[in-house]
């Protein structure tokens, strides 16, 4: 049996982005001893990339805004597939979550009367996004990070130890959730710096690992986004919900190649930027779908009037939800009206003075100047869709963020499914991770307390299996198992696995590139049945090859080894995306089928669940379930005519209270 360091905690949070840190703060404040494990340094999480803002109906910029309006916008954006109770809690609690950030030191941009300024964003009826220039994510992560440090300072003052109640294990990766029977008992992890394994024993584990974008070639996501939490949940026996819904942000950089995919914030459009094709036409007017016809301007004049007088003008179509804009750009490029490097033009230079651009969009100005030699105050940007966010995720209980079927497992933020339905509105991600991060931390802490006297036990066999799994790549590497196995046992098991897999080590970087190309080309923004079949057979081959992945060197800070271990997760999650996408024979939100282009009312209340059929071979089992009907008082927030576009006649008759 390998000798592995073990520690006892009440709650373990996996991931230190916005959701993870908010969960950790809540759990610690409710008295749970809480450990946070993150792959990067503390404070570097992908949340820093969020630019636009945090959506919350505080009504600072428009007094008419209410949680009901926010709820309505969220459901429209998600095409009514949202887990409606989550959307309701989210809209109700977001303002409190923003305000409390101020008490922890956050400094948002201000209105004239000294309140938090709010900006316009796609799909939001009123200016709703609390922001700090275009670096809101950084402000959020720094505020939460500093709140954690403040709590550690309190603990230090009381006990002399900063980390006795709340500890960050930075640059560590969790490879398995451990279980005692059906219940969570802890996590198995390795320290990236030393390569050493360790186990944190805890009755409650919160997964807050973010998304899956690194399975796609063109993405705005960082290296951390390898679907770890999604895969950990699957392997622990929890199902994933609606994985076919992947958001392609309409505006990523397209040139030069090395920055392809890096995000261009939606604030560019929210603040007045427009999209044009190679003929100079503002093409978004041609792409307003029927369900949104009444809400969007029909002429440039009307659209331009909206920025100063929203009461008497309809919104510019550039501010349609992201799925609509991404598809429109894709269609323009396909029709031969794209920009020189295969995107379209996004222009602010003719829309506002250079000085205003530099003040309102400082990061964008900087980013284009530094990385593309483009001065956005003088010329248009070239932009195109980039894989940005996964709406699908771990199926959770709306109130408690508990994962289905695995007591002690919780999920919050991007890794959790349901909240955003088939498409997320900009700004709803940062509010989501605050609202449900807090709820996950709260319920995980309560659950852990309820088990104080009968804490689940950690099983040595599971630890041995997890060690062997993590060491396998070394046994196949050029230098064999000797270097890899230093420090801990497990080499024998690993060597055995190698023999079983058959010779010929695979390079993890090559496999990763092939996976990204497969997902990009075959399960991307526009999907077809034949291509998804092809993707599934390629994924099966990649999975088989991944069993033979080998790495060189030793375990100390070895990126090749880290990638080899992340591949398991990316392959599992990619298969879920491809299977669910093949199953859903309609187009809705972040899932567009060329062979089934219409949104079908019969599909609106159907969830697709992916579970692991057989943990040994990693096969995915897909099931359908019907969602519970939307509560009548929530349906009453919409016009009947609008509902008729989404709900079946039966649902309409049964649902409305009036």
């Amino acid at each position, binding site marked *: 049996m390998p000798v592995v360091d073990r520690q006892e905690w009440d709650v373990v949070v996996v991931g230190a982005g916005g959701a993870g840190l908010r969960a950790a703060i809540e759990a610690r404040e409710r008295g749970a001893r809480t450990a946070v494990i993150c792959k*990067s*340094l*503390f*404070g*570097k*999480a*992908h949340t*820093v*990339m969020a630019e636009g803002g945090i959506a919350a109906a*505080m009504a600072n910029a428009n007094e008419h805004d209410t949680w009901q309006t926010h709820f309505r916008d969220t459901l429209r954006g998600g095409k009514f597939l949202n887990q409606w109770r989550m959307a309701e809690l989210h809209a109700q609690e977001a303002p*409190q979550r923003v*305000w*409390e950030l*101020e*008490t*922890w*030191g956050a*400094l948002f*941009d*201000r209105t004239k009367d*000294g*309140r938090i300024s709010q900006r316009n964003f796609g799909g939001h009826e009123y200016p709703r996004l609390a922001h*700090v220039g275009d*670096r809101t*994510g*950084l*402000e959020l992560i720094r505020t939460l990070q500093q*709140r954690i*440090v*403040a709590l*550690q*300072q309190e603990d*230090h003052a009381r006990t002399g130890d*900063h980390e006795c109640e709340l500890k960050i294990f930075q640059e560590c990766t969790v490879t398995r959730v451990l279980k005692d029977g059906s219940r969570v008992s802890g996590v198995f992890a390795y320290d990236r*710096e030393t390569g050493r394994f360790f186990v944190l024993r805890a009755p409650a584990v919160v997964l807050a690992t973010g998304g899956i974008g690194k399975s796609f070639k063109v993405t705005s996501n960082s*290296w*951390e986004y390898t679907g770890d939490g999604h895969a950990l949940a699957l392997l622990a026996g929890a199902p994933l919900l609606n994985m076919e819904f992947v958001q392609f942000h309409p505006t990523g950089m397209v*040139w*030069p*190649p*090395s*920055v392809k995919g890096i*995000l261009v914030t939606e604030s560019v459009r929210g603040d007045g930027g427009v999209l044009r094709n190679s003929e100079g036409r503002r093409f978004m007017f041609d792409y307003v779908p029927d369900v949104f016809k009444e809400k969007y301007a029909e002429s440039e004049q009307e659209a331009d009037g909206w920025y100063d007088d929203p009461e008497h003008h309809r919104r510019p179509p550039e501010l349609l939800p992201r799925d609509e804009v991404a598809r429109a750009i894709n269609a323009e490029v396909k029709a031969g009206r794209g920009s020189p490097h295969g995107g379209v033009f996004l222009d602010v230079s003719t829309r506002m003075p250079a000085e205003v651009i530099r003040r309102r969009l400082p990061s964008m100005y900087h*980013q284009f100047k*530094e*990385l*593309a030699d483009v001065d956005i105050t003088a010329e248009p940007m070239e932009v195109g869709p980039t894989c940005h966010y996964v709406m699908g995720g771990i199926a959770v209980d709306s109130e408690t963020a508990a994962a289905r079927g695995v007591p002690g497992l919780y999920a919050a933020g991007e890794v959790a499914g349901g909240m955003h339905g088939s498409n997320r509105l900009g700004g709803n991600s940062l509010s989501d991770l605050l609202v449900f991060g807090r709820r996950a931390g709260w319920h995980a802490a309560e659950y852990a307390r309820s088990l104080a006297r009968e804490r689940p036990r950690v099983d040595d066999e599971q630890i041995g299996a997890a060690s062997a799994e993590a060491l396998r790549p070394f046994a196949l590497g050029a230098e064999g198992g000797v270097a890899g196995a230093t420090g801990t046992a497990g080499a024998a098991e690993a060597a055995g696995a190698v023999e079983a897999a058959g010779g010929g080590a695979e*390079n*993890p*970087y*090559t496999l990763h590139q092939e996976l990204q190309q497969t997902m990009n080309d075959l399960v991307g923004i526009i999907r077809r049945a034949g291509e998804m079949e092809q993707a599934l057979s390629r994924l099966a081959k990649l999975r088989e090859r991944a069993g033979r992945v080998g*790495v*060189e*060197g*030793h375990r*100390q*800070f*070895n*990126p*090749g080894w880290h990638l080899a271990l992340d591949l398991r997760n990316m392959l599992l999650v990619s298969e879920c995306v491809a299977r669910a996408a093949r199953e859903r024979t309609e187009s809705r939100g972040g899932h567009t089928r060329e062979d089934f282009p219409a949104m079908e009312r019969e599909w609106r209340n159907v969830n697709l669940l992916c579970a692991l059929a057989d943990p040994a071979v990693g096969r995915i089992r897909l099931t359908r379930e019907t969602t519970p009907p939307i509560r009548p008082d929530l349906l009453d927030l919409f016009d009947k005519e609008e509902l008729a576009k989404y709900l079946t006649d039966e649902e309409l008759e049964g649902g409305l209270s009036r």
Partner: protein
Amino acid sequence: MSGYEARFRVWRGDEQGGGLRDFTVEVNEGEVVLDIVHRLQATQAPDLAVRWNCKAGKCGSCSAEINGRPRLMCMTRMSVFDRAETVTITPLRAFPVIRDLVTDVSFNYEKARGIPAFVPPAELAPGEYRMFQEDVDRSQEFRKCIECFLCQDTCHVVRDHEENKRAFAGPRFLMRVAELDMHPLDAAERSGLDRKRTAQEEHGLGYCNITKCCTEVCPEGIRITDNALIPLKERAVDRKYDPLVWLGSKIRRRPS
């Protein structure tokens, strides 16, 4: 512009020691130094250790020294170098090496813990905060910091003086004190905490002799010396020393 073969020298090793290794590697149009490091990993040195995350200049992970200058690898374009030039990448010098380009930056996290947090005003409930843009501008400038620690690396007080690390928080964290001190609603003073005094007595503000090295390397363009450190020094002086010094500093600042 077509691709070309560039010559690179990358420091490889660990706390036991190491040295520069030579590589010849393909470079394409628009690429940054981090792209080249990734290409080295994928084709020639799969276990080359490097820290990175967003690759867009927003997270501050990929700090290193390129031809001796502290920079973010993701924001250093290859086009700034002559094609014939050998590009040398070494780890941050002020921090202990873990492996290759990865250093132990825990010094910074320890210093962060030493700075008392924002003190919320007791009389204001969440949602009741009112602050004007012009009053938060200055602290917001400091909150642009992405914690890449290039300023900490370049600051001569600690760069080659390990012995000063205990007493000196470094530009990043002195700027954090300044940020809190200039926060319009920070109630530290009412709670008995004098941030100006602690900057001087606990965080080593006096070590800084405003050479502006930190400002020069800041990838966010924050004017650390002019806007954070000098004003903090002036406020500390106002607070701490005798009336004559206080008067002197005021007189000197008068336009002549």
